[in-house]
């Protein structure tokens, strides 16, 4: 699964969780907290949606800072 595909799918998930967010803000280097305003409730929702869409399980509380780190984690753990 390419990073481009994962990134596009992640943008789709974020657009649903944060419908009023400007999609242009979701760059690979965007910070989850300061740029995308992902708080603790949104983190739980986002991680559940990612697990569902990519059929993976986050091992524990992952200290992700940016969209890129999430994309890379998914790429490493997704089963093709």
């Amino acid at each position: 699964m390419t990073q481009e595909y994962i990134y596009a799918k992640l943008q789709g998930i974020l657009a649903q969780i944060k419908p009023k967010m400007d999609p242009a803000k979701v760059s690979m280097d965007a910070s989850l907290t300061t740029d995308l305003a992902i708080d603790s409730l949104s983190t739980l929702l986002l991680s559940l949606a990612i697990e569902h869409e990519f059929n993976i399980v986050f091992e524990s509380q992952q200290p992700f800072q940016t969209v890129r780190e999430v994309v890379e984690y998914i790429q490493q753990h997704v089963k093709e």
Partner: protein
Amino acid sequence: MSNYFYDMIPAEELAQLHYLPTVPEYLDWITTKWADRPALSDTVNTFTYKEMASRIARRRTLYKEAGLQPGDNVAIFEKNSIDAVESFLAVTSAGLVAVMLPAQLPAPAVIGCCAKFRAKALIVRDEFRAAVEGAPCPKIASSAFGEAETPAAKVDKDAPAAIFFTGGTTGAPKGAILPHRALMRGAYNGVFAPGSQLFGHVTIGFLPLTHVFGLIAGTLAKLMVGALWYPAEDMKATIGKLPQIRPTVLVLVPGLVEVLVGLTKMYGPQFLGGRLKTIIAGAANVPAKLIEEFEKFGTHVLAGYGMTEGANLTSGNAESAERPTSVGKVYPEQEVKLVDGEIWFRGDNVFLGYYGDPEQTAATLTPDGWLKTGDLGRFDEDGYLYIVGRIKNLIVLPNGENVSPESIEEPFYQCPALRDCLVKEVEDGGQPVLAVEILPRAEAFEGKTPAEIEAFFKQLTEQVNAKLPTTHRISKVVIRTEDFKRTGSMKVSRKDN
């Protein structure tokens, strides 16, 4: 006697329900009536009510062998689990008093609590045990069983059954002692919900068993009606199992309701199993938006009102969609009155007092059994109760008038762009003035500058002020960029902000 709750349930189902005032009587009744139904499951192991009765009886044997005597305090330090539920029922049906220690307590606090509550034993989860070996009492593994079965004790309905921590939003934590009759009245009240079957539910223990809402409404009430109960040891993992568990009723705090409604909007009701009819929400203010959103998917979110000292549920609202700001009507077999605006309750559900704190007990409980809630309330013409504020939070204005900050905050909460707010008195130019601190919903202000956000909330404040008496008006607006400090149940803490 109120018929509001009784009328929610078909008469033939209501006739099968019994309020039994002690845990041993309740346990005997549920394990006889629902004997072969599944009671507790962690998706790997499932135990029927009959099997649960036997496992609890074998746990009582351990307590007897440890020399525990009726009336002894026994601390329980566990996560939400089958072992936690069975240990609680075993302790209380043996006539012992369960001291419910929150799973997030650091080890030194657990050791301190065992000393403070003079615990004669500590029932502890295996993975927690090494850290609390220093506790000044024998440890019993929560996973352990005796060989033989020991029958339940005979207990008085007024005897202490459990001690819960309370008092997080305004003061130091206290240990509220609940008698058997209070636990059982709370459990009985917790079964009423409109538009849903009474029996045969499937539910999940998401809220801590160390909180009355999780234990009494979320667990004891559900077992009373023969439900199958799953523990949520891990929140995220359990939500992921919802399509497999397929709950029919859940007891939740508003934050979790928000997550579940988000998942439903993205993936449809099937993501939650497709048969969730009722959510009982409480322990914090339930936003009307959540109630409306879930209603579209056929799930009723019902808000209630309660407190630890009243064994949780004292009122419930079956019409949350129509009256979202009300906490409903008062449950049956309780007296309620307003004294200088303060809500007072009396009935089986009222606690015995705070452990080792006669002063606080006397301030909360009158000699003739009234529980002074500390909450200010009002009733509408149809008998629905509304919470107006907390007495302890009253602000004394320079003119000597009292104002409840909650009554001023309430209109702010109608604004969907606001996540939380807090009204308080601050000094401004040497004068005391009322200020509002506002935490915006970040997603509502994408691309907006701080000045634009401030302008939006200043305008909102002017709209709120226009409807307030001049002495109650807000003079200062502070926009927060960081979250408020919160209590364990995620409420905004008035003490720490």
